[in-house]
């Protein structure tokens, strides 16, 4: 590793300045203690461009940038398809759901679902599903934050990772609790601009290094990855057998339907001033995501070409440090100052990405706890604004602390299973519920509950017994084997289950669902 001390000092100064600046912004834009609409939506005062950048900032999470660039660096083609499905998911949200969501929504996703079918059961189920999708996502981001910060700062003391997780977690709680929707939107905008600038610089440097010839970059990547022609074919990440192909298909279905349906992204739709403003915001968001996706693709390929497979896997088996390694490798062309500046720029962009993603997810989860669980279920929609806002802030603290403790406990494990769980819950429970309740007039309360609970239960059950949890060297528990579901992601089964259970529940009520379950149990 070529981290010099000057680069690390630069990165540390950059982190402190950025964290302070973001906290200042959140305090300045913070809402009054009884102003619910300001805290949840920022009074819908953001212009389409700013709201679009905030949506893109929430959508392009740390896991997307770091893990995907790692997958591209190590497996090439599979990673590029993953970027493509991520981008496409936001496009589907923009074209199919964004405007109806804005028209039907008020503060949370629970509002959209409870609009036609008000009731405590619907609110409670919505909150449970949102937590099931948000908490795993938050854990992954925090854990990635821990390993990235220790790597950037070059600390290898035992417990440093846990300390970094605590620092990032504390900042995240502060941003979400102080800033609310508007403050986190500003943090997201800063993050998008920084990420764009840093990745544009690296992409241009990479392309000029290969004399603006994509073929030269690709052939260098083929050699550097050590896989030869297989680098540009499907199969390095998931395997080329029938199981690998199904796994590939399942992952793509989960990402394309689930990534944009995660609650922290759909919640941003409520920030637009009107449905047409949301359409414009989403156009900016999709454009920004496409550009960042292309940059990530080029940077991941360049990491394979310039850093090489062995160095990347030696630093991190999943390759999430490949962007930083690439910036160091490029920096050696421009000795002393260039290396420090490049490393600090990409490190700062990644640091902001980590902070902004965790703050957005925490805010969405806590908002749902306060608005759906506390105000909707416990107080039967008779809570005061001041009380609900206080609960929202306490919920941010509570969820943040739980996430910090869990992330510190599981920091050394492979957490791909958690991100797969979040995407699968999004694709199998949230996406069918939103599509049915916005577009099907025959959808009933039973159908909605069946979709939410059936989809989530199916994901959690299959995921627990999948190869992502046990039975393989790269599983969450590599030394145990209790798997019977042969794939790593459940999308290929759980998405049809989610849609089907909603249809069955709406058409035939509880009885048919119970009898279908009985038949399934009897046949197995």
């Amino acid at each position: 590793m070529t981290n010099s001390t000057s680069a690390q000092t630069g990165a540390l100064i950059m982190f402190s300045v950025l964290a302070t600046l973001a906290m200042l912004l959140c305090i300045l834009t913070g809402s009054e203690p009884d102003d619910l609409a300001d805290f949840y939506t920022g009074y819908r005062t953001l212009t389409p461009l700013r709201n679009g950048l905030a949506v893109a900032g929430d959508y392009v999470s740390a896991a997307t940038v770091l893990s995907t660039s790692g997958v591209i660096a190590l497996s090439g083609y599979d990673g590029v398809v993953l970027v493509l499905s991520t981008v496409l998911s936001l496009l589907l949200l923009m074209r199919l759901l964004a405007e109806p969501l804005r028209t039907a929504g008020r503060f949370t996703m629970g509002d959209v679902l409870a609009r036609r079918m008000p009731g405590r059961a619907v609110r409670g189920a919505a909150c449970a599903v949102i937590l099931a999708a948000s908490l795993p996502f938050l854990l992954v981001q925090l854990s990635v934050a821990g390993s990235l910060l220790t790597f950037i700062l070059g600390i290898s003391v035992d417990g440093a990772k846990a300390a970094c997780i605590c620092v990032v977690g504390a900042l995240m709680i502060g941003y979400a609790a102080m800033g609310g929707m508007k403050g986190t939107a500003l943090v997201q905008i800063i993050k998008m601009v920084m990420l764009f600038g840093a990745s544009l610089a690296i992409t241009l440097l990479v392309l000029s290094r290969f004399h603006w010839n994509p073929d030269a970059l690709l052939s260098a990547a083929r050699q550097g990855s050590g896989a030869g022609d297989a680098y540009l074919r499907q199969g390095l990440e998931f395997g080329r057998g029938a199981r690998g192909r199904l796994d590939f298909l399942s992952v793509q279905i989960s990402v394309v339907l689930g990534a944009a349906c995660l609650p922290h992204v759909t919640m941003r739709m409520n920030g637009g001033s009107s449905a047409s403003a949301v359409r414009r915001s989403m156009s900016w968001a999709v454009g920004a995501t496409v550009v960042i996706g292309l940059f990530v693709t080029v940077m991941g390929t360049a990491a394979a070409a310039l850093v090489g497979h062995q160095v990347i896997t030696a630093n991190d088996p999943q390759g999430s440090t490949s962007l930083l390694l690439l910036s160091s490798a490029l920096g050696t062309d421009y000795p002393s100052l260039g290396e420090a500046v490049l490393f600090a720029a990409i490190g700062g962009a990644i640091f902001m990405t980590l902070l902004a993603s965790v703050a957005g997810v925490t805010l969405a989860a806590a908002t749902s706890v306060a608005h759906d669980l506390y105000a909707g279920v416990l107080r039967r929609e008779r809570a005061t604004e001041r009380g609900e806002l206080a609960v929202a802030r306490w919920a941010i603290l509570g969820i943040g602390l739980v996430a910090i403790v869990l992330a510190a406990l599981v920091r050394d494990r492979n957490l791909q299973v958690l991100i797969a769980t979040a995407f699968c819950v999004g694709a199998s429970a949230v996406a069918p519920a939103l599509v049915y309740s916005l577009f099907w007039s025959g959808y009933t309360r039973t159908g909605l509950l069946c979709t939410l609970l059936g989809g989530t239960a199916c994901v959690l059950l299959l995921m627990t017994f999948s190869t992502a949890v046990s039975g393989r060297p790269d599983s969450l528990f590599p030394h145990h084997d209790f798997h019977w579901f042969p794939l790593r992601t459940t999308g290929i089964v759980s998405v049809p289950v989610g849609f089907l259970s909603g249809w069955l529940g709406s058409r035939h009520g509880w009885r048919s669902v119970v009898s279908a379950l009985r038949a399934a149990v009897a046949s197995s």
Partner: protein
Amino acid sequence: MTCLDVLLSLRPHGRGRHRAAERRTSAATLNALAGYKSWLSRAGYWLGRAPSMATLCAFLLYVLLSSFLGDVMSLPVPGLGNVGVLLGLSQFAAVFGFAAHGLRTDCRGDPAVGELGEPVESYR
């Protein structure tokens, strides 16, 4: 015709009661027309969404081709690696085109969105 005449003609036993059947027919026609219009607007909504649905289908086809017809996808293309990379990049371009188009269009009056109206649920 005064207002009183209108009111009387609307009463089931009033002056214009023999026109009841006629009124029923015209009401049925109007209803049918409204149904037809709502069907039309729905069809229009989904037709407007057809390009994005086509993009989704194209992506799923691309995933299937990549996994089951790997040999075709790895045919070399000069300057850009192979067919798979070329198709992937063209999908990026298509998504970017959608984003640019979304900024260019004025997005008034989406029929299905208009039908949803304001939230009906009173909060507190």
